[in-house]
């Protein structure tokens, strides 16, 4: 009898010790449960970002931008006297990681607003959680499925559809009809060939080959060989670094002459570094930040973009990427709405929806109850790479 009691006691003891150890570590981080919609005290903003994993080239600059901005707001007295408590979680670039992080932020930390994720797949995973918790969420990712029909979810990155529209415009102007596509196999690339076919129908654009690549792929020979064999007029590579840059390199390596279009997922220095000389001559529709110095003087975005670039550079010693820009937009729109409406979820959401003509880094935002993305194709410029630097091709059409 005693032996079993002893073993049971040990079991309990071990569990207790383990829990205590974890508890000690945990309590330093997030606190215990607090009631939601608190009218005073710190405003909690949770951010789920791809800090490690395939999306690290997005998540890391996003985190840096958010940390910088939160510090700026807090040193300026906060929002209506309330400080911002920024809680950043790493989703490890996976859907499950995003769900786990969002779940924790929503139910354990009781955040007032959720930012994230960096990419489409994890954002889609977070969406049902935000909607079930009835808290506003601002995604930093591209696919419009993230906000379609949603009451609580918004986004600041340009919709992929808008990007495609811009690219189609350029393809039409240059007379490219047969397009080959190499796309990211994850949520970011899902539906792109179909979208291109649909948007490009009137321009006579046809998709002649579709190849997929894993976000962490390093060898693209198979895909590019097949694309070369399809003899397209132009090729669209739809992915993020490092895959997008390696694909670019492989494409040029095989001596394929047709011009390359890239998505708006390449908007950072990491892409240029990895792609090197093979990036020269590509065409992409990107946000204005990368070519801020080439913007017109009366562009309403110019002062916003310029300040962001100089603040970021002063703090981190390098230029920000477009993804840092998406984070900037998410945060500033959130702050503006918090200033207007406080932390009550419904009022906050309404305030977000009423964002109008607000110049940000990714574009000029106008949200409506039916449009939670707020950007049109005017937010983008056609850009190319010349001698390893971004260069504007033309103004917005």
């Amino acid at each position: 009898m005693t032996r079993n009691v002893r073993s049971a006691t040990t079991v309990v003891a071990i569990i207790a010790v383990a829990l205590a150890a974890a508890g000690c570590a945990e309590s330093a981080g997030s606190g215990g449960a607090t009631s939601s919609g608190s009218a005073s005290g710190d405003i909690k903003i949770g951010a789920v970002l791809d800090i490690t994993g395939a999306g690290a080239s997005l998540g890391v600059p996003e985190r840096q931008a958010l940390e910088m901005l939160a510090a700026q707001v807090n040193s300026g007295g906060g929002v209506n006297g309330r400080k911002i408590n920024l809680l950043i979680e790493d989703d490890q670039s996976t859907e499950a990681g995003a769900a786990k992080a969002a779940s924790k932020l929503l139910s354990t930390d009781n955040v007032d607003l959720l930012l994230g994720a960096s990419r489409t797949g994890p954002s889609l995973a977070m969406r049902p959680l935000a909607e079930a918790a009835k808290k506003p969420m601002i995604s930093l990712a591209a696919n419009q499925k993230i906000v379609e029909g949603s009451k609580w979810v918004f986004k600041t990155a340009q919709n992929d559809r808008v990007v495609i529209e811009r690219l189609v415009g350029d393809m039409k102007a240059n007379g490219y009809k047969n397009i080959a596509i190499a796309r990211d196999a994850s949520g970011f690339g899902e539906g792109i060939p179909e979208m291109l076919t649909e948007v490009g129908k009137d321009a006579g654009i046809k998709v002649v080959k579709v190849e997929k690549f894993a976000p962490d792929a390093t060898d693209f020979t198979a895909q590019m060989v097949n694309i070369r064999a399809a003899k397209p007029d132009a090729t669209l590579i739809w992915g993020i670094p490092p895959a997008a840059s390696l694909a670019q390199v492989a494409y040029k390596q095989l001596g394929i002459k047709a011009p390359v279009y890239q998505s708006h997922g390449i908007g950072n220095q990491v892409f240029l570094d990895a792609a090197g000389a093979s990036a020269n001559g590509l065409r992409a529709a990107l946000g204005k930040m990368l070519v801020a110095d080439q913007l017109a003087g009366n562009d309403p975005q110019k002062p916003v973009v310029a300040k962001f670039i100089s603040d970021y550079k002063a703090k981190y010693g390098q230029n920000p990427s477009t993804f840092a820009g998406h984070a900037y937009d998410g945060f500033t729109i959130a702050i503006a709405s918090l200033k207007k409406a406080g932390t009550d979820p419904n009022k906050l959401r309404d305030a977000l929806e009423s964002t109008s003509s607000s110049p940000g880094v990714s574009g000029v935002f106008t949200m409506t109850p039916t449009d939670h993305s707020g950007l049109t194709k005017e937010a983008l410029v056609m850009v190319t790479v010349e001698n390893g630097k971004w260069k504007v091709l033309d103004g917005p059409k």
Partner: protein
Amino acid sequence: MSDLLQLVWSGLALGAVYGLVALGFVAIFSVREIVNLAQGEYASLAGLSAISAVAAGVPLLFAVVVVVPFVVAVSVAVERVAVRPVRHMTPLVSIILTLGISTALKAAMLLFWGPEAKALPAFPGKDFVFAGVSVRSQELWILGVAAVVSYAVVAFYEHTTAGKALRACAEQPIAARLLGISPRTATMVAFAIAGFTGAVAGVVGSPIYLSSWSSGLTLGLKGFVAATLGGLVSFRVAMLGGLLLGVLESLAAGYGATGYRDAVAFVVLLLVLLVRPQGLALKATGVRV
């Protein structure tokens, strides 16, 4: 046709990297029955270290030459600190042990180098086109180095006294000890050789395939598959197996669905293990139980 050649060529280059990793598995297993699950991490470590060295201003080839002994030292340290103290080494124990080592190494690399994949600058040389096939100079380096290293390793194990002594250790440890061959030294040398081939695989492949804290896993696993084709005891078959595996993967990606390319290696592994188990046992005596 040039498509096919292109696929085969890039498959061979990738396969040579697999083969180099495979040599490391065989080096250890043929001396002591340990499957070193940390083999792939040697490659990542070498690649990342070389990248740091180059970023710090060290000339490329010099960095490569310096990094390889570094990783060899790490491998020997691993043997000393983690493998030697274990008193009763069974397959289960060795797997868990090397798994732990692999995990710790990965995490250390993550902490030190961060999560992003990085590339070493390509070795000197020019890319060119031959018979419609685009050939990167780095690919030539990979194949050349792989050939030289394989030859050297085989020559060591089969034609030098030291190498033969190592093999003796595996087959008859007690007899070997009576002859003055120390199993401890043998294990250490085996780990050193494994570190060597892994490091070479890492630096020579990094310019094309990139190095990151997590790139060792699939590389190690595929190297293991190549090694099992040789029964974990044949260096020649391990290298050839690696080449074959690389080509199979490339063809599968090109003519089949690209997404399944990673599965190719493991389907091959399962087929080999199931269809020819006798060929893989160290002692083929027909004992089934």
